[in-house]
């Protein structure tokens, strides 16, 4: 008998969007739908750039890269620091999902404090959104890579990495099929970054529709009442 299912990531229950946000989110989605091709690989995609900018400001970071899942961001955080198949890393407070995913990448987890922490992470929820700056503050200096997971806002899997080291960002973008560098090669007809070559690549690109909702939520995080 025919059957379908939806994928449920371990340990995550996606919450329903709050009623008072229906109008503003519907409005922003309608506006994005009406504005042209909704394509994450368009050169001038403004929703993705806008979200990157908001996150950069929030995390006080020079470079931000967006992903269509938390695990995509974890992969990029490690790959960007050359923590690859056969490497070791440390993840304090790693969830069961973290452990399983990092193991699948072929990266070993250790508790030895001599090994640097792979990345810091913050899960952004409706509960902590209005005080997200305070949540982020202690994390900013602890690791060169900060992963923000926006999935629990309810728009679909969405995460980012924030870094100050350009080479980490470059490698992270290289992990994405049609990330920033593949895109440049399309327009210039020349390999954009021959020295930092891609290996395995995944489609971790975020939909501009999801990005638009996350961006709106971040911009209005201090409004107590919506429309």
């Amino acid at each position, binding site marked *: 008998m*025919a059957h*379908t299912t939806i994928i449920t990531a371990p340990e995550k229950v996606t919450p329903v969007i709050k009623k008072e946000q*229906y109008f503003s989110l*519907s409005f922003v989605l309608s506006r994005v739908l009406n504005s042209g091709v909704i394509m*994450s690989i368009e050169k001038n995609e403004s929703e993705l750039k806008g979200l990157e900018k908001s996150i950069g400001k929030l995390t006080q970071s020079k470079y931000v890269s967006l992903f269509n899942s938390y695990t*995509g961001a974890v992969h990029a955080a490690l790959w960007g620091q050359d923590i690859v198949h*056969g*490497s070791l890393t440390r993840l304090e407070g790693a969830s069961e999902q973290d452990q399983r995913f990092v193991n699948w990448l072929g990266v070993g987890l250790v508790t030895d404090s001599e090994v640097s922490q792979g990345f810091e992470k913050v899960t952004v929820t409706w509960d902590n959104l209005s005080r997200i700056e305070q949540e982020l503050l202690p994390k900013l200096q602890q690791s060169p890579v900060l992963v923000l997971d926006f999935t629990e806002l309810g728009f*679909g899997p969405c995460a980012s990495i924030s870094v100050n080291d350009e080479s980490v960002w470059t490698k992270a973008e290289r992990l994405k099929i049609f990330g920033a560098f593949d895109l440049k090669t399309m327009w210039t007809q020349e390999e954009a970054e021959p020295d930092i070559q*891609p290996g395995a690549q995944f489609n971790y690109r975020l939909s501009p529709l999801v990005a638009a909702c996350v961006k709106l939520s971040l911009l209005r995080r201090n409004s107590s009442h919506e429309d």
Partner: protein
Amino acid sequence: MKTDFIRKPLSLPSEAWINEQLAYYGGPAVIPEDSRKTTFPSITKEDIVQMLVSIQQSPEAVIDEFTEKYRSYVGANYAIATASGTSSLHLALVGVGVQPGDEVIVPAFTFIATAQAVVAAKAIPVFVDIDPLTYNLNPALVEQAITARTKVIMPVHVHGLPADLAQLRALADKHKLRLVEDASHAHSASIGGQLCGSIGDGAGQSLMADKNFPVGGEGGIAFFKGREDYERALTFLQETGIDYRMSWIAAAFGISQLDRLPYYDAIRARNASYLTNILAQTKLFKGPHVPVGHKHSYNMYRIKLDPEAAGLGDLPDYQVKEAIQELASSEGVFAREWQNVPIPGHLPFQNRKGFGRGYPFTLSERKDFGYHIDHFPETLKMLRSTLTICRELRSPIEYERIAAYALAFQKIDANPAIIRELVLQNTAAKKSYERDARLG
């Protein structure tokens, strides 16, 4: 208000345009510069209303509704909605049982995600050349690529033309291999009435923005014939923790778009048939070859150039192609390269870094992976001598626009001497695969 509404209608087409001076030399362009934009997907009030409804439902319910609706449309037994086409292919491969170090046979001409999905499954892509007529995986060459490590044959229905699944199925059965379709270009395409995605043991399909059935930016779906394969894919997700979930926003868009897919398919088929019939009357151009019983979805429309028939056979084919591309572009028709280097020639297969330290390529005992582009002469020939219309024909364009495209090709066909002149002027032209590899 920011809008993609096209405000300027095209003039009604006239055959007199064929004899006008080429736009490249200052004549009037068949499609004026301010009328070249096409839009797809078309967003209608149904999409907006569906979004207003879906936002009030649980994400799981929206995704489930979309998955079931599309699974039923395709006629597949089992389906898993995903975040992208690449992730759907990855799931299809692990679902049919691909293990680290296995080999998967794929065509040398496709989008890079086909082969990267094989690497994601920690397997080794083995590239095989294409059929010179259909540009799909050539079944006649597949058998010699099969080794003791081969697990899957994964054809791609390139541009929306179904691959020769009957022959590939026979080969798969003979060698006890699994057959997985990359149906990313082939929404509503079919063989003998059976839709692509439902024919193989498994299938992956992209639903991203430049596909015939796009779901709001990014998305994909994996299909399975057998319950065991489907459950293996679900177990893989649980065991690895990898999050490949589709956003409910994409699913909501998919629900409303799916209702209009047959309408858009019909316009594409009408337009492709019109263009193919006109091109058949020219010396230089030929439309896609579609085998009997196969239904092409025309996600892209690849035009074959025949310089010899136009008295240009003494000139290098790639230079003739470049000159025609230039002329077509100035007439307002974006016939271009889609892919310029066979996939094994792209950096990730030349350097074989994989997940790092060469994994999973290090699992292979191969000394030579067969990734030199010279192993794929038919792909190289195709890249030298064809041009592709992409979004401009994927969109449900109006009659006057498709008629204008046809007139533009007729106009160029009437000017072989100018093509010769351009070729002789442009001595710096390179073969496409001598340039850096691009993804599209």
